[in-house]
């Protein structure tokens, strides 16, 4: 799984967005991704997965009180975006996702033919 830096992807790629920090782990059966998306509710999350890429698009929705004026902002854009290129052995059909307390967890299994297999050595 590689990160894609280009902006060729369709959709909202043209809008400026924050790059969310992620952890990516790989074990024998698949890849696990955790992404920090604070301020994003389920309705604001848009995951696009096809055979080649995984894109995370998320809108921040805060309950701002009426008439509020900001005096200091470290989160200055209202959305997150990050795109990864998937490799062939990953099963994009089998992806599961969960969003909890602003953390997105993704599990991408490896296709059956890519699962580890012990080869017996005869002799």
């Amino acid at each position, binding site marked *: 799984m590689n990160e894609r830096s280009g902006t060729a992807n369709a959709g909202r790629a043209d809008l*400026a967005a*924050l790059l969310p920090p992620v952890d*990516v782990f790989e074990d024998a059966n698949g890849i696990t991704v955790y992404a920090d998306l604070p301020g994003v509710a389920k309705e604001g999350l848009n995951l696009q997965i096809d055979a080649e890429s995984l894109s995370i698009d998320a809108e921040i929705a805060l309950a701002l009180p009426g008439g509020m*004026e900001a005096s200091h902002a470290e989160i*200055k854009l209202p959305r997150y975006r990050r795109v990864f290129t998937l490799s062939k052995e990953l099963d994009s059909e089998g992806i599961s996702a969960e969003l909890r*307390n602003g953390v997105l967890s993704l599990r991408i299994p490896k296709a059956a033919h890519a699962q580890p297999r012990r080869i017996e050595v005869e002799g």
Partner: protein
Amino acid sequence: MLVQSLFPRDLFSMLDRLQREMQQSADVYPSIRGLAPGTFPALNVGGTPHSVEIFAFAPGLEPSAFDVRIEKGVLTIAGERSRQLAPDSATVHIDERFAGRFRRVVSLPEDIDPDAVQARYRDGVLHISIKRRAANQPRRIDVT
């Protein structure tokens, strides 16, 4: 301006002092690269005539994990975020998310009421709302 829609900026705000203090420790210019290390949780601060509003972007915690205090006009948000452990035998490809103890401090304006504070944690954002005291009424002093 995208920024304005989410968090409009008012340079003449009474909280300007706060902003200057925090600028010393954080790069506040918009960055597509997200946050500089050492600024977890990211803070947005704003105010209305009746309240001061603080948003701490601290995903992946439980409400009970926060230690929020107001003491002598200073708000402290502290806690610890545990490391997301990779399963044994897993390879770590990217490891960017913050882990460890955190502590952020905000100087509050003088007119806040430390007894009227609300703190809610939702979607990974801790929102602290502190009421301002009612404006001091003109008071007649009796001369005897």
